[in-house]
């Protein structure tokens, strides 16, 4: 069902990807009387969940246990994970994946018909469910097609949410723009669930699609909800040069090797174990992503990487896997290498390098997806519960979308059932009018200076240089200054397209303002965390500091000046902080 303007719903889900669709289905199943809607700036099957390749982790082998999955996750996250949330997550992941199987997801199978699992980085047991190497694609399409069953779910396809409406300490709805016509409408809701994904486009080189601009994070931040752990940005070790297209970790879990310019499996020099001909769990190429990406940087410093036309790369060697295995288990990888590099991984080495892939940080939520702002929820990459801590293990984020999407949906449904509905109050109508003014001013701005693309490119450069894999007080301070300057330049930026019909330049301008906000939180949190943990590495503070920083950073927007950062101690239940051990 497609929505009408100026509508009212009980629960509004922003974002139609894995988490958003799962949340909407959860609301529809929780209470058939509730009116639930999904607002997405793209058609749901275009959501970035579709690009995920490798798999989704869930304990099903008898040799495996929830405890092992939880421990792998906690140590993978360098102990910054909320252990209570991790335990809940690992328990529900297999159930959610099974539910998806019953909804038709074409999981790859063992010969006897049971779901197959493959090894994955940082995991002690085989527990990653997969659908060839297009797991995200199959999961998203299964969720989308299943969601069509529920006529109660209203969809606003290609509508862009520009602001959350808050009154009397509660969320009241959103202001949204219909891309096709450019009209601006209010959609009221008792509960809003943010499932807008991450913000990889803040960086210049990323696996993320064009749409990953941190919109939901900025919406929550501007509405007064804190963002958590923003300094933790994951670089995936194997992206194709120039495009940044993801080559899944499954290529390594099926046995691929990473070689430097001497054909040497260099990861053995970085305390990740000894090279064996077949993959060893939690060792070498199956180590955690942060350590592998950091190893690349070190190899560059030592001059042992290969000089490619787009910068230094290392080689992913899949030749010894054989054509049959690659065709069966990694067909999409082969397609991508052939298409975008003109290379056949069956016979040739694939050039790869670390690429920004995932945001461990996001909107701060509790174990049920609730933010501190009543009526506001978040799930998926947008949210930070946190189950990923300082570094996410591969194949944990797809089940995260399902588990927390469902939880947020159920909790929001409960909240909406008991919350009183109200006509938009005067303050809300004032916020709407204010927002219309802001949008109209931007759209009709005459004689701005620089184009949006120029400011965006400079922002990306600044963030990469200042807050890349390795950071320092200096690099971060430079980035912070640059972002401040860019914010001022954004205020007088030029818009050439003043039309209303499908104005993508206008949307890009709005997305840029979200990215500027999010970039500032990344840099600020990185500046204040004076330690190295997981994906956040400080050259000036190379050690992990559990005394001061066994805590999540919470950043709140301030009306004036620098944002306010607080620390929330991590919930340690079963596993006291220990050394992260890989390869031994």
């Amino acid at each position: 069902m497609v929505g009408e303007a100026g509508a009212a719903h009980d629960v509004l889900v922003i974002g139609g990807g894995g988490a958003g669709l799962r949340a909407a289905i959860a609301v529809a199943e929780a209470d058939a009387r509730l009116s639930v809607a999904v607002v997405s700036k793209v058609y749901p099957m275009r959501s970035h969940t579709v690009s995920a390749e490798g798999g989704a982790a869930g304990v099903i082998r008898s040799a495996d246990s929830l405890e092992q999955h939880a421990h792998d996750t906690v140590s993978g996250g360098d102990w910054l994970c909320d252990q209570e949330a991790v335990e809940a997550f690992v328990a529900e992941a297999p159930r959610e994946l099974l539910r998806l199987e019953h909804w038709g997801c074409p999981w790859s199978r063992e010969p006897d018909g049971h779901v197959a699992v493959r090894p994955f980085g940082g995991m002690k047991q085989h527990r990653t469910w997969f659908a060839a190497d297009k797991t995200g694609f199959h999961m998203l399409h299964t969720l989308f097609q299943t969601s069509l069953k529920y006529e109660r779910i209203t969809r606003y396809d290609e509508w862009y949410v520009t602001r959350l409406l808050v009154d009397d300490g509660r969320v009241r709805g959103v202001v949204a723009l219909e891309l096709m016509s450019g009209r601006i409408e209010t959609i009221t809701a008792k509960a809003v669930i943010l499932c807008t994904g991450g913000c990889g486009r803040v960086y210049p080189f990323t696996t993320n699609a064009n749409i990953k601009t941190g919109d939901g994070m900025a919406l929550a931040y501007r509405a007064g909800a804190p963002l958590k752990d923003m300094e933790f940005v994951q670089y995936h070790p194997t992206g194709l040069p120039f495009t940044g297209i993801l080559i899944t970790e499954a290529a390594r879990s099926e046995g691929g090797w990473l070689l430097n310019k001497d054909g040497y499996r260099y990861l053995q020099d970085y305390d990740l174990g000894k090279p064996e001909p077949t993959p060893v769990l939690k060792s070498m190429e199956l180590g955690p992503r942060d350590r592998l990406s950091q190893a690349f940087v070190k190899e560059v410093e030592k001059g042992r990487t290969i000089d490619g036309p787009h910068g230094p790369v290392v080689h992913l060697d899949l030749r010894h896997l054989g054509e049959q295995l690659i065709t069966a288990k990694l067909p999409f990888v082969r397609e991508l290498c052939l298409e975008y590099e003109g290379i056949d991984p069956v016979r040739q080495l694939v050039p790869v390098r670390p690429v920004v892939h995932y945001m461990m940080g996001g909107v701060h939520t509790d174990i049920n997806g609730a933010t501190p702002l009543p009526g506001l929820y978040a799930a998926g990459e947008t949210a930070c519960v946190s189950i990923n801590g300082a570094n996410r293990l591969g194949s944990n984020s797809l089940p995260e979308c399902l588990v927390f999407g469902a939880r947020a949906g159920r909790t929001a449904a409960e909240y909406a059932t008991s919350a009183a509905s109200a006509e938009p109050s005067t303050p809300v109508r004032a916020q709407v009018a204010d927002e219309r003014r802001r949008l109209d001013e931007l759209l009709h701005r005459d004689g701005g200076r620089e184009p949006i693309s120029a400011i965006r490119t400079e922002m990306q450069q600044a963030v990469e240089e200042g807050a890349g894999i390795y950071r320092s007080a200096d690099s971060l301070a430079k980035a912070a200054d640059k972002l401040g300057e860019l914010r001022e330049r954004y205020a007088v930026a030029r818009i050439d397209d003043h039309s209303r019909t499908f104005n993508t330049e206008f949307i890009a301008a709005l997305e840029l303002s979200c990215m500027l906000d999010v970039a500032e939180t990344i840099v600020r949190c990185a500046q204040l965390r004076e330690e190295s943990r997981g994906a956040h590495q400080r050259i000036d503070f190379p050690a992990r500091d559990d005394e001061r920083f066994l805590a999540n950073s919470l950043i709140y927007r301030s009306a004036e000046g620098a944002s306010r950062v607080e620390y929330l101690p991590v919930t340690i239940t079963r596993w006291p902080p220990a050394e992260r051990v890989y390869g031994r």
Partner: protein
Amino acid sequence: MPDQIILQVTRYRPERELEPTTQEYEIPLHEEWAVLDGLNHVKDQLDGTLSYRWSCRMGICGSCGMTVNGEPRLTCATFLTDYRPGPIRIEPLRNFPVIRDLVVEIGDFMQKLPKVKPWLIRDDDTTAPDGELLQTPAELDEYKQYSMCINCMLCYSACPIVGLDEGFLGPAVMALAQRYNLDSRDEGADERMDLLSTAEGVWGCTFVGECTTACPKGVDPAGAIQRYKLTAAAESLRSFLLPWRSA
């Protein structure tokens, strides 16, 4: 200094013109650039008012379908150098109403898709499944090809029946129906037959076969539809000869 190449791009701004026009842009011809990279260069450096859809740039989200030199292509998986020395004509996908520039309205597809019930139809309760429904690799192979559809609409653009007949369900919708019909876990083939075995469904298809040629993911919707014709015909025959046997 790289070579240059000319893009001839369709423009349509409903607020000020009644019909589309063509605008030319000269861009650098880089070896690794896809047509989409060319369009992004135009938007970022030459003309910010050009509107088009794109997202993943790796051929999996289905957003960036356009007509390139008369053929329906994913612009992220089509390379500039293939059209050297140019010019390259870039138009919106055929058989769809044009909203703006290279953006077409796909609401028709979005409306038709749910009609074939593209979800797993089963009797049992899935709220707390005990274990997985078993499915052998051979059973998975039966429908796997049809599950690869990225909803890019290139097949709709290639199919003349879609252009001639508004009610025709179209290749992707029917391939997706088959994806579920052939899934060993599905029990809903009967429910889909009423709609598929009609003039708007498979019987409207005259096997032009262009949909399969255009499909960037090897789904072979034409094959899916012809196979269903055999199934539907067999079913009609059976219900005619043995009417007491429920399907």
